[in-house]
């Protein structure tokens, strides 16, 4: 499983970078990337170089980073709230981020004080802040007797999620035409606007958070068994849970701020990997990151090549392509036990 994924990642990335309105051969893709990394002289047309390096590579990398971040956040949250249905969006973080992003998307150009503030922040900045703000609220509401209770946390997250969704829906209803389409596209996730300048921050956050979580993988194994077991194993379950939640929310906010509300990958990538390699988080977290990354690279590839020149939002592809794949895995996993 691990080796398959390690081979699959570069193959998928090269394929995805090569494919598109202007097809670039894998050899040229490798040549161009090598040129930019080592400074060697590329033996390819300048137009290809421009398309590959300035447009496609950041886009594919952003898709990978987004998928990896959401998969790791999903795996972590499933352990923290001890619920297999949890995904990065269950805590309302994405609803908060979406509401903030949609405020900017719909009012940013319109002017006024709110518009001015929002415009300065940008869609990504607003989404990131909205996500973190929501996490703060959820943590406050999820406390009971001075400790964070998983069930309360979930309920608070779901309730706030509905609230922010209502805000988003209202703002959408007031819009029309092209603006509405932009909003819808953002809500369903897209990496079409990827640039090198918008890639490094989410990439760095995903790398750091994932590394931090992998180091704590053993404590996640214990936390899944419940607070009593965790306490008997010498862990401060409450404090640990808060740390993990903050990191998972940070991951989620960082990627949806640049890629929008990409659905499904955070729920399914961890489960798919669990069905194949078991529940130990030391293996689960890195493999879920790779699987989620590859999955989203391929989903983006399908989204922009299935019906050109129209692009499909990521969530449409992840759900349509991912659900059958996951159901097959589930059937096979069920037969195994």
């Amino acid at each position, binding site marked *: 499983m691990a080796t398959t994924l390690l081979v699959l990642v570069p193959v998928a990335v090269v394929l995805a970078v090569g494919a598109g309105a202007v097809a670039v051969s894998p050899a040229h893709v490798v040549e161009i990337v090598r040129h930019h990394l080592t400074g060697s002289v590329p033996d390819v047309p300048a137009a290809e170089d421009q398309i590959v390096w300035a447009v496609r590579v950041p886009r594919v990398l952003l898709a990978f980073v987004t998928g990896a971040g959401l998969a790791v956040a999903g795996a972590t949250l499933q352990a923290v709230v001890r619920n297999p249905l949890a995904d990065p969006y269950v805590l309302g973080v994405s609803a908060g981020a979406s509401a903030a992003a949609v405020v900017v998307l719909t009012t940013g150009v319109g002017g006024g004080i709110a518009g001015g503030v929002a415009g300065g922040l940008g869609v990504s900045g607003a989404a990131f802040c909205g996500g973190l703000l929501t996490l703060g609220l959820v943590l406050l509401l999820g406390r009971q007797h001075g400790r964070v209770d998983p069930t309360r946390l979930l309920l608070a997250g779901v309730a706030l999620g509905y609230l922010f969704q209502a805000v988003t829906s209202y703002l959408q209803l007031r819009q029309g035409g092209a603006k509405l389409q932009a909003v819808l596209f953002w809500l369903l996730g897209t990496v079409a606007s990827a640039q090198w300048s918008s890639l490094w921050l989410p990439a760095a956050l995903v790398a750091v958070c994932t590394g931090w979580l992998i180091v704590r*993988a*053993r*404590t996640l194994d214990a936390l899944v068994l419940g607070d009593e077991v965790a*306490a*008997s*194993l*010498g862990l401060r379950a409450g404090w640990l849970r808060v740390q993990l939640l903050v990191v998972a929310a940070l991951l989620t906010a960082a990627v949806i701020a640049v890629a929008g509300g990409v659905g499904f990958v955070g729920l399914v990538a961890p489960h798919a990997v*669990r069905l194949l390699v*078991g529940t130990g988080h030391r293996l689960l977290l890195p493999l879920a990151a790779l699987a989620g990354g590859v999955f989203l690279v391929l989903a983006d590839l399908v989204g922009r090549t299935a019906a050109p020149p129209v692009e499909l939002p990521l969530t449409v592809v992840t759900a349509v392509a991912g659900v059958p794949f996951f159901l097959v895995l589930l059937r096979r996993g069920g037969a195994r036990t």
Partner: protein
Amino acid sequence: MMRLAVHDLGVDLAGRRVVEGITFDCAPGSVTGLVGPNGSGKSTVCRAVYRALRPAAGSVHVDGRDVHTELGPRQVARRIAAMVQEGTLGVDSRVLDAVLVGRTPHFGALGRAGARDHAAVTDALQRVGAAHLAHREFTALSGGEKQRVLLARALAQHPGVLVLDEPTNHLDIAGQLDLLDLVRSLPVTVLAVLHDLNLAAASCDHLVVLAHGHLVAQGAPGDVLTPGLLHDVFGVRAHCGTNPLTGRVQLSYALAGADPTHPRSEIPCAPSPGSSPSPRSCRPPSSSPWA
């Protein structure tokens, strides 16, 4: 093997004092049974011992060191292990991995499992007679096998004190005797919550009886389990006899007031081996309200 000393323990839950003034000692290598009706505070005492709850008063010492003030959570977890009921994520894990979780307090900063950890897991599984289950899925095991594996996890922690909260839950009668026999043979100090008083009498060196969060009696099972105590604490009429197969205390009980012509004081306690149970205590089924 370590000495466990609970002194004047008081614990608050949701702002209410649920246990108070609990003092008892577990000698190294002994098996102490914690008995009492539902809600008497048995589990609360256990949770304060393995540091899942902070006491509002009193202290818990393991080998002379205070569990809550002198030792950190990891240090406590290397001395005191607990076997508690648990949940899962609904996905299977292998028995080996389930037991390896017991090494959590011994893992280094990077959480790497070394040769010592794997050796501890193998050794623990062997001790509980579950080495053959190592590669099975945990959720596919029988109730008895699961309890053995959970016991192995606690042993992999390399504790000096083992806390067991109703370890015989969901076990058939042979499984119950088997598990407690195994527990008795382990080189650890054991504190166990037990509901079955006959099982407690048969397998414990020392019994601590709780009622309404207070300690009402403690001592050797034969001295503690008297008809008077059982009436006062559990509200049952009891007869103390001897198990003809093991020679240990054997209790028979019925609901108090079920037979008002025989107040509890008239029922003799006959703990000496060889004496036959009083015929009065073996009431015919026809007098039972469910007959």
